[in-house]
């Protein structure tokens, strides 16, 4: 029951359009790259200073001077370019990136997202996430619908420190796909084997079931 990490990533890959420049966050978002169809012209941006990110390198081609934002060794593709962090965030903040996919600890009906801090517990920092949600044309969140204790992570109001406000358009979870608009979640797709009502029940924030809701297929 419910989607695994790869299935969440695969579903998000459907949102990627021909010609898009896409920035993928760490975790499930990174997996999205594996599902983007070859026939689409898509450029991956890595905010540490690379446009045109390729796959992991072969052993012989590992280069400590060539990493992605997750600090993983990476490769370039024909047409890649390198640039400074200031140029990178001019791309991001300036609205030149079409889509970013990020993980989240919480999202809410106002399209706000929390993904960088748990007060008193976790102090890792926001990295580029605040700039990405403020600047990318579209922001999609990849996340688990509920935490390990069974509490919903799709809320009326995030109670963790925010990463950005009014910036999330769509959430893809292990349970389904939800749009955020008009200050509510709209369930548009459900994971195989789940009912829309299951997703509704697992969503703490106000949610409605889209009349054309469908079951996802893989």
């Amino acid at each position, binding site marked *: 029951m419910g989607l695994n990490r790869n299935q969440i990533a695969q579903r998000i890959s459907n949102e990627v359009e021909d010609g898009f420049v896409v920035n993928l966050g760490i975790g499930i978002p990174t997996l999205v790259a594996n599902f983007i169809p070859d026939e689409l012209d898509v450029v991956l941006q*890595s*905010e*540490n*200073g*690379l446009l045109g990110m390729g*796959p*992991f*390198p*072969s*052993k012989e081609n*590992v*280069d*400590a*001077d*060539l*990493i*992605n*934002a*997750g*600090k*993983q*060794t*990476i490769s370039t593709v024909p047409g890649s370019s*390198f*640039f*400074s*962090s*200031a140029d*990178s*965030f001019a791309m*991001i*903040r300036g609205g030149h990136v079409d889509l970013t996919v990020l993980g989240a600890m919480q999202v809410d009906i106002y399209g*706000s997202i929390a993904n960088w*801090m748990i007060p*008193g517990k976790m*102090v*890792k*920092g*926001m*990295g*580029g*996430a*605040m*700039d990405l949600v*403020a*600047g990318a044309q579209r922001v999609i969140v990849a996340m688990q619908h509920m935490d390990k204790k069974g509490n919903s992570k799709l809320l009326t109001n995030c109670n963790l*420190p*925010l*990463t*950005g*406000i*009014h910036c999330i358009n769509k959430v893809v979870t292990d349970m389904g796909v939800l749009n955020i608009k008009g200050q509510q979640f709209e369930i548009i797709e459900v994971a195989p084997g789940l009912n829309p009502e299951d997703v509704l029940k697992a969503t703490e924030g106000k949610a409605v079931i889209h009349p054309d809701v469908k079951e996802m297929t893989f």
Partner: protein
Amino acid sequence: MSKVYKNATEAIAGIESNMTLLLGGFGLCGIPENCIAALKESGAKNLTCVSNNAGVDDFGLGLLLQSRQIKKMISSYVGENATFEKQFLDGDLDVELTPQGTLAERLRAGGAGIPAFYTPTGVGTLVAENKEEREFDGRKFILEKAIRGDFAYVKAWKGDTMGNLIYKKTARNFNPMIATAGRITIAEVEHLVEPGELEPDQIHTPGIFVQRIFQGSHYEKRIEQLTISES
């Protein structure tokens, strides 16, 4: 007047406790390894360090955290360092977390003579607390201040004796802005060459921004996440 120094120890001369230092690099990529080692040797304390990350426990800025020479970090992401987390949670280390793009722009502004700028990043979050908010064309922005440092330390692939620098691949990252924002900027390079050997069209950081330069040695270039393709 020559900008060339023999090694890191000589190049960092003038470092004192309580100074603000800017350090290039993203993770462990493109960090001024030689300067960090020399800073540790210098024993300077109560330093404020501006760097996107704080290194790992036993490398990069983690070395200066271990020796408790840093009193404050201004960074965007510090997640890979347990020493950092412990010192912060114990209240021994002051931290100003700044969004990565804002950090890059604060440094760029510092070097460019711009005292502050408005950005949409962080509006409505903890980052916006105590900052001026202003609306432009119906959208909210916050005022962020420029950063300058007493010393700036950058790492480049190649440099000439006039201080012109060329970075390699993603080791460029924060280095170009940091080079502009130091009252004294010290560049360590893998290859130090004579003027004329670098193509003027290829220079990333013009020598005007660099006051001291030396050829580094024993680069470890540690990789944080070694990921390779199976095929």
